[in-house]
């Protein structure tokens, strides 16, 4: 029952917390699916969030699954719908695929510069491993053959490089 005033207040706080917690996750998922440069991203995220809120206040979320899974389902469904709509429109006005996305969004640019500075500070052995593994997208085994080291060592180099980067950038 949500009729008592303190319950109502509680529910409002919960919803605020929910927005803060899930907005970045939904944004990440939407951008990955339709491309970060896509101007519809923000609208889609807001739409999904209000759908989530609506479904929670109307009692449609009954706690059968975790809240995360519930939000995930709504997000995925909305993305599928969006892509379907777009494909229909695209039949008449062909549009290039929104991804892969070579450009950086403005907000990411600053972060990206930090990463670049941190990458430049790495020793060549780490940079080589990152280059083959992430840029050329070689498997551990292929990268290992290229560098003349064991696949295990490739993982170690990549993982340690990631650790160093995060330490350098403090993220």
């Amino acid at each position, binding site marked *: 029952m949500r009729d008592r005033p303190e319950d109502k207040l509680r529910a409002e706080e919960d919803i605020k917390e929910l927005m803060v917690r*899930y907005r*970045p*996750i939904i944004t*990440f*998922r939407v951008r990955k699916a339709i491309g970060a440069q896509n101007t519809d991203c923000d609208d889609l995220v807001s739409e999904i969030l209000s759908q989530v809120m609506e479904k929670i206040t109307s009692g449609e979320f009954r706690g059968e699954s*975790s809240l*995360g*899974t519930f*939000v*995930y389902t709504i*997000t*995925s469904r909305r993305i599928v719908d969006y892509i379907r709509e777009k494909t229909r429109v695209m039949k008449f006005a062909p549009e290039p695929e929104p991804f892969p996305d*070579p*450009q*950086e969004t403005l907000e*990411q640019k600053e*972060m*990206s510069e930090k*990463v*670049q500075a941190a*990458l*430049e500070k790495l020793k*060549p052995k780490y*940079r*080589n491993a*990152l*280059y083959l*593994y*992430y*840029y*050329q*997208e070689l498997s551990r085994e292929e990268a290992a053959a*290229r*560098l*003349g*080291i064991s696949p295990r060592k490739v993982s170690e180099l990549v993982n340690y490089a*990631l650790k160093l*980067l*995060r330490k350098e950038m403090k*993220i």
Partner: protein
Amino acid sequence: MRKCKFEDMIDGYLLNKLSERDKELFEEHYFNCPACFEELQARSLIINTIKNHPEVLVSEEASLKVPLATRLKRELAAFFNVRQLAMTGVISLIFLAVIIAVVPKRQALLPDFTLTDTETVRGSSITLISPVIDMNQVPSFFEWKKLGENVEYQISISNHELLWKTTTKENRVVLPDEVKAKIVPGERYSWQVKAFGPDGSLIAVSSRVQFLVSTK
């Protein structure tokens, strides 16, 4: 640090290497696991930066002259005005000339390809895939990015002089044993690929990439 078992899927997810089922599993997971989502965001930032700025990672020997020059220019522009920049340019050129004169051995790789009057370069260059960095052993094959169908590639490997030259329709070539035997650890080698169309016209030329076979 406790490691979530889903953490291993982060790279696969970001590089689009997961199966459709694993992808969905992982997506549902990061909606529920704050630790994985945090790691995912951080790694996505790192991978995106690498994808957009690979030149940051390529070590000096392998890096091509153009990106390095652009990078320097960009960095310098942040500090100098045009006049100062020009001055710096002149000074660096003098330095460069001195360095080239002092260490001629390191620069001993002769460019093997020159364009004749009948040849023109159209389109983009060829991206060399391997070897572009220093190797622990003599590379057994050379690989580059395919340009399209019906293209003939001419590959040349040299140190002080031309070591080997061959043509192929594939985008990789296996090094014959007699050539392999000529490659000595500790020496610097370079290679380049030229692409020709069906009518024999030159379509693209790769940059000349150096590699070193280390002595151990």
